């Protein structure tokens, strides 16, 4: 495949720095763009569903208009009870948006805290902290949630806090490895020799400059995981119960009509789930490849 290079006439200013926008290759730009688009339409849906402006009432049953194909009035058509699918999808974002944010905030804050403590004091604290984190980490997440459901019969918000707790070990180990890389890179030793106080080093050099990208990436991926978990729980029937719309139980409701040929009943919510999770993963992936410095020859 032929390659064309050409030299545009550029003003002769010599600059060498690598602004963030220049560092991204085509692939990163596409993935971040797609990711941001997904995040933005999530916010939009959440906004609409809370204020309830554009959409019809998702619960309103209209027997006459069952199984309508997608039309202007019902954007995605209607389901077996005649409820408008588009408004149900918009309402569905409410089921996982706030819980998702809760789970991210829980996992990032505690992950950062434990990661830095065990990064800085490897011998004493790291062993204790990682003992407890390993306990949480070794129970498969969904079984952990099942146990909690049996015990506390919780709402979706409490489930998501436990999901956040169960993803703390992953983030803590990422941040610990990042801190260790920095430690044997002399840059912290040089800062201490220069005279910065211990807290200044930790807050400025480690948290703000090095681990912030790691946190952002883990947050986006964490959001993707919490969506996946919430939808699969409500699919199993133990998450959000039937009348209130959630993407998971829409797929569950749609599966009975699968073999009658009406596959789009469960395909549309599944497609939206796919679209959202892929967007979040691509966003995390693009940010990841931008933030770790590529070795440019």
């Amino acid at each position, binding site marked *: *495949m032929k390659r064309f290079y050409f030299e545009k006439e550029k003003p002769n200013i010599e600059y060498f720095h690598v602004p963030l926008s220049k560092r991204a*290759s*085509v*692939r990163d730009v596409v993935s971040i763009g797609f990711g941001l688009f997904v995040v933005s339409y999530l916010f939009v849906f959440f906004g609409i569903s809370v204020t309830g402006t554009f959409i019809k009432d998702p619960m309103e049953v209209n027997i006459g208009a069952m199984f309508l194909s997608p039309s202007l009035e019902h954007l995605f058509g209607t389901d077996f009870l005649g409820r408008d699918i588009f408004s149900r999808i918009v309402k569905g974002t409410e089921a996982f948006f706030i819980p998702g944010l809760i789970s991210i905030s829980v996992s990032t804050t505690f992950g950062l805290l434990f990661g830095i403590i065990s990064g800085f004091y490897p011998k004493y604290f790291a062993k204790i902290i990682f*003992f*407890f984190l*390993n*306990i*949480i*980490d*070794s*129970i*498969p*997440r*969904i*079984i*952990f949630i*099942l*146990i*909690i*459901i*049996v*015990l506390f019969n919780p709402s979706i918000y409490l489930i998501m806090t436990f999901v956040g707790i169960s993803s703390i070990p992953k983030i803590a180990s990422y941040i610990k490895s990042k801190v260790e890389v920095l430690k044997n890179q002399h840059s912290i030793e040089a800062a201490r020799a220069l005279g910065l106080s211990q807290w200044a080093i930790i807050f400025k050099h480690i948290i703000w400059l090095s681990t912030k990208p790691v946190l952002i990436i883990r947050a986006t991926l964490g959001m*993707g*995981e919490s969506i*996946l978990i919430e*939808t*699969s729980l409500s*699919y*199993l029937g*133990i998450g959000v119960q039937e009348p209130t719309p959630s993407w*998971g139980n829409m*797929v*569950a409701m749609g*599966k009975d009509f*699968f*073999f009658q040929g009406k*596959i789009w009943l*469960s*395909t549309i919510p*599944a497609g939206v*789930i*796919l679209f959202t*999770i*892929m967007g979040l*993963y*691509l966003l995390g*992936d693009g940010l990841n*490849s931008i933030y770790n410095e590529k*070795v440019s020859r």
Partner: protein
Amino acid sequence: MMRFVRIFFKEVFNMALLIVGVTALLYLLFNLMPGFFPGKGQGVIEYLRLLKKLFTFQFGTSIISGRDINSIVFPAFRNTLILTIGSIFLSILISVPIGIFSAYRGFKTYSWPLVIFSYIMSSIPVFYFGYLVLYVISRYTGFLPIYYPQGVERGNPVVSYVLPILVLGFGNESISEIVRLIANELERVMHTDYVIASKAMGESVLWSSVNEGIMIPLVSIVFSKIPFIIGGAVIVEHVFNWPGMGRLAFQATLDRDLPVLIVIAFLAVLCVRVGMILKEILLSYINPIEK
């Protein structure tokens, strides 16, 4: 050789400690429930009896549903084990070639459709993907049995394993993770000094970069994904109505059968810790650098 034995024993001790920890956590959680756990001697003695029961693998009868736990859990555990290991192999089989190809070729001509495919595969919700495969298979081919042959006519169980393993292998999100990790690591390693030096010596680039570029990320990601794959199995078993540990757990939650749940959690943790031990041993074999 001594190194592996020492690491093995250290890890076994670690595992025993962790399992005690997990059971302690579960026991604590159960005690939070008001009066649910009919322990006669409260507190530690009850806990020790629970430990003895768990570690000697006779689980006795479940107080709630009166079924003998042993007879239910072990066949289910065997099925889920086969399902998990099968799907791990499948996802490795799919993602490693894609990772190597996309690192080797760079994100140029042929490799981007494969990477996009791996992303789509791993972000499809498992439950929908199961139904899609069922629908397509039953609609157009019809040769694969849809449901696990229950009861008498056993049929050949091997064939019925294929479909769930296929779905779980493709469905769980470890594919995109492995592809991304291997592509990044291999890309970085192929430009390090020692690989270029060995290329100058006439050695093939892939051979000299296989240690750090492929093996370490693969081992570290696959074995740390076991809990998630077991989680995924719960959903796949629900979709395919497959008599695995996941479906059992789901049934147990519906009728609030706690002892069964404890046993399943215990076996799952056992699985995960064995996986972690394997991971430590393999990593110490590949990566001889003592930290």
